[in-house]
């Protein structure tokens, strides 16, 4: 049992001090030649979580309308229920045409009792009475109903 130990000890003792230092330095250098990426991953994860939490996914109506010009236009809430009223008087929501009667139900469904604001993208040449009806119906379910306008020229 003592035999292997006795064999091993002389070997280490006979190693000179300089040899040991050289070996230690060699091991150290192999330890440090890889960059430590753990702090990078930490930061990236924190950024990722921040962007996931702050991300708002809105359902777009799926058509592009010719918005009317307005002077008092302000930036609207991003997280909104968006309807579009096309130039040929079709109400669009989430890529499909909907009927006027479906609007309150869709607002309620989309805002999930969180009271999301409603944005109506209206075409300049659409029928104003349909717009008025959509606004009136959307108001029943949401306190904040806006009409999207063109961006003011800076």
């Amino acid at each position, binding site marked *: 049992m003592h035999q292997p130990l006795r064999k091993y000890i002389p070997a280490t003792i006979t190693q000179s001090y300089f040899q040991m230092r050289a070996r230690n330095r060699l*091991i150290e250098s192999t330890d440090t030649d890889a960059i430590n*990426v753990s702090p990078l991953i930490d930061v*990236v994860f924190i950024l990722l979580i921040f*962007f996931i939490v702050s*991300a708002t996914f809105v359902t777009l109506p799926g058509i592009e309308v010719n918005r009317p010009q*307005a002077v008092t236009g302000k930036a*609207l809430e991003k997280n909104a229920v968006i309807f579009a009223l096309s130039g040929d008087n079709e109400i669009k929501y989430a890529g499909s045409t909907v009927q006027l009667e479906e609007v309150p139900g869709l607002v309620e469904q989309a805002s999930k009792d969180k009271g999301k604001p409603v944005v109506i993208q209206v075409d300049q040449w659409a029928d*104003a009475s349909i717009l008025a009806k959509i606004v009136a119906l959307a108001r029943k379910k949401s306190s904040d*109903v806006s009409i999207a*306008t063109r961006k003011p020229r800076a």
Partner: protein
Amino acid sequence: MRRRLSPEPERTEINVSPLIDLVFILLIFFIVATSFVNEVGITPKHKDTASSSSNLEEPISFDLPSSGQLLQDGMVIGLEQVAPLVRSNSSDKPRSVLVRVSPGARAGLATQVMDQAMLAGAQAVKLSPLTQ
């Protein structure tokens, strides 16, 4: 024995590069996705509950018939006259504006009338459809 004494220390490490790749792709996706919709618009204020006292005074009403004109009190006016009319009527107190639209009127014009009324400081702007 020879392997243990060799200068290359034997280490078992998890390779994190694919993880970082994936996390970066997710990060870039969420950065891009955060600013999809930047909508500008008008929010016509309506004060149904608070205007019980101011309900006594009649709102200034603008009519948009299907002919595409803009009428105020039966007179054809231009869009640029909306703001002065609202302002002159609201010398003491900001008043509410009612925009009555007939089927066939342009939504662009209705929006611009509301915009002008809000520019003039109308306290409430209401859009109401006229049924014929």
